[in-house]
């Protein structure tokens, strides 16, 4: 049976070191370990140039080499007869491998230390399985077809969704139902471009809606900065950063920061950039406690999903430019329990009954709506007037108001706040108060825990 390189996907995950044998022109062999062999296509592999000088000298004198790859799932070994083709110092393949190296070195706290010097491309002349006494070597067929079908189903679901909230839910639910991955997050880029904010998640102890990741930081931030997928298949040797302890609301009240959720025992992670119209819109992130949970095939299929979602979100944003309506209800809700809302102007953080809710533009939006409601007894607000409002000082709101309203809406739900934004129809929100609201404006960096 002919073994196709594409069927050896797990061997390229860099979990078990590969081995490279070369020989000088006068027949002196050389043998060394390699951390990673990159699959290029069925006839080519690439190696990052991390060699000792002897290997490089041998390859230039005698371009024949033999690689031994190991499947980390069963230990099966595969021998590849290869011929050195050429070295690359740029291009798509080089850029992708460089980004992957930067991401993995950032993960182990060696950011900027490991740099890709060169990529060597090899033609693969022959692939064969090494005899094994354990079980007859069984090549697992590629799962690409199955994942492609799941991506197609999910793409339909995304295409059917017409507003941002439905699109985000379609992606997160679809990844779980179609691919079987239950720990996911979707983050969208802030207009400033410096940060990503979580707008939805599945499978965590807390949703993390409103939590932020700096572009360039860790796996998610690197995928955004590099605009390429970052995948880690075995985190057992990677230093873990303690972000998986559930934060208390006292922590949130003190730091005015919502913690990013995470799996404490994650072994695999993949972060996929969401790109539409040439711009980064966000990042789709998945993780799993299993080793090797995300194969190259899964990455390829999810990349289609991520970009499809980015396009759908862009379209929903532009449709959202039509005036949409926010109505208010329960004017004063005299029957309900009164509640306090404190607006800290220095960072626009909002606390409801001493509980931190949100800060920044979504915080400003909430206070603005409430103030109009209290001052003018207004029942209806449109997106257009929010965009035009001087009071709001909204930065570059053109394409982000919908996202911020969604963030605000979901955060209020999560905090079980006595003040909610309900979606009542396409482009229609309702400001709902459970009791009389008392709004206080706090200037300066005073403590919130009064």
């Amino acid at each position, binding site marked *: 049976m002919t073994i196709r390189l594409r069927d050896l996907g797990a061997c390229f995950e860099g979990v078990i070191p590969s081995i*490279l*044998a070369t020989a000088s022109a006068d027949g002196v062999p*050389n043998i*060394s370990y390699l951390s990673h062999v990159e699959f290029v296509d069925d006839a080519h592999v690439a190696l990052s140039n991390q060699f*000792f000088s002897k290997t490089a000298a041998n390859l230039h004198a005698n371009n024949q080499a033999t690689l031994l790859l190991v499947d*980390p799932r069963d*230990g099966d*070994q595969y*021998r590849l007869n290869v011929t050195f083709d050429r070295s690359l110092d740029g291009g798509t393949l080089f850029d992708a491998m460089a980004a992957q190296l930067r991401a993995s070195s950032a993960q182990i706290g060696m950011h900027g230390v490991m740099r890709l010097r060169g990529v060597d491309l090899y033609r693969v002349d022959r692939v064969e399985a090494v005899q094994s006494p354990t079980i007859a070597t069984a090549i697992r067929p590629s799962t690409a077809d199955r994942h492609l079908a799941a991506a197609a189903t999910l793409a339909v679901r995304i295409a059917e969704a017409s507003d941002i909230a439905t699109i985000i839910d379609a992606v997160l639910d679809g990844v779980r139902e179609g691919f079987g991955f239950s720990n996911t997050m979707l983050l969208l880029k802030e207009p400033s471009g410096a940060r990503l904010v979580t707008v939805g998640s599945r499978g965590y102890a807390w949703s993390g809606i409103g939590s932020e990741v700096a572009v360039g930081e860790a796996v998610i931030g690197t995928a955004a900065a590099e605009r390429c997928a970052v995948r880690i298949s075995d985190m057992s040797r990677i230093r873990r950063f303690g972000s998986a302890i559930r934060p208390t609301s006292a922590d949130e009240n003190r730091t005015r920061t919502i913690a990013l959720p995470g799996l404490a025992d994650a072994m695999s992670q993949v972060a996929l950039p969401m790109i539409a119209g040439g711009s980064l819109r966000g990042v789709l992130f998945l993780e799993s406690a299993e080793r090797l949970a995300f194969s190259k095939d899964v990455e390829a299929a999810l990349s289609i999903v991520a970009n499809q979602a980015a396009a759908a979100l862009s379209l929903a944003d532009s449709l959202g430019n039509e005036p949409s309506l926010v109505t208010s209800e329960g004017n004063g809700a005299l029957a309900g329990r009164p509640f306090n809302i404190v607006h800290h102007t220095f960072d626009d953080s909002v606390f409801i009954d001493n509980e931190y809710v949100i800060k920044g533009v979504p915080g400003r939006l909430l206070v603005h709506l409430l103030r109009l409601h209290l001052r003018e007894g207004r029942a209806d607000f449109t997106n257009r007037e929010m965009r035009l409002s001087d009071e709001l000082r909204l930065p570059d709101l053109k394409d982000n108001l919908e996202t911020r309203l969604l963030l605000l809406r979901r955060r209020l739900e999560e905090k079980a706040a006595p003040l909610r934004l309900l979606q009542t129809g396409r482009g229609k929100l309702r400001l709902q108060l459970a009791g009389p609201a008392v709004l206080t404006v706090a200037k300066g960096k005073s403590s919130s825990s009064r």
Partner: protein
Amino acid sequence: MIDAELASFMESAVMIIVGTCDDVLRPQVGRAVGAIVDRATSSVDLIVSEWQWPETIANVRWNGRLAVTFARPSDYVSYQVKGRAMVVPALAAHRACAVRYVEAMTATLVGNGLDARVTAPWLVDREPAALRLAAEMIFIQTPGDMAGQRLEPSR
């Protein structure tokens, strides 16, 4: 050439990979399951499964060229030894060494978090042959500043 410390390293639970080359300069990869160092002569006997790595044995029979890298999985300390080798029949001592090695190496790799079912295909001693290597050159291959440097005979 091989001092006591290096000899002990080679005989400990370290991964052993062997490189050979055929008559058309095609290099070949194989694995050894144990080493016995003759400290007086700097000769190293490597036990290799001819069942699993027939090309490696055939290449050594053909031209005697051999490169061996010893690597410790826990900290990547590695040495490469090159020289001329010949194939000798595996004696009882070689077979016993292979059994001990497979046991110790399996324990080490399992201790590093690998499953014994996964490591089994790398630690095969079926139909053992011994490659008797006369060490001519030794190189440090531990990743780092010293990588690729030749060990002085007076080490």
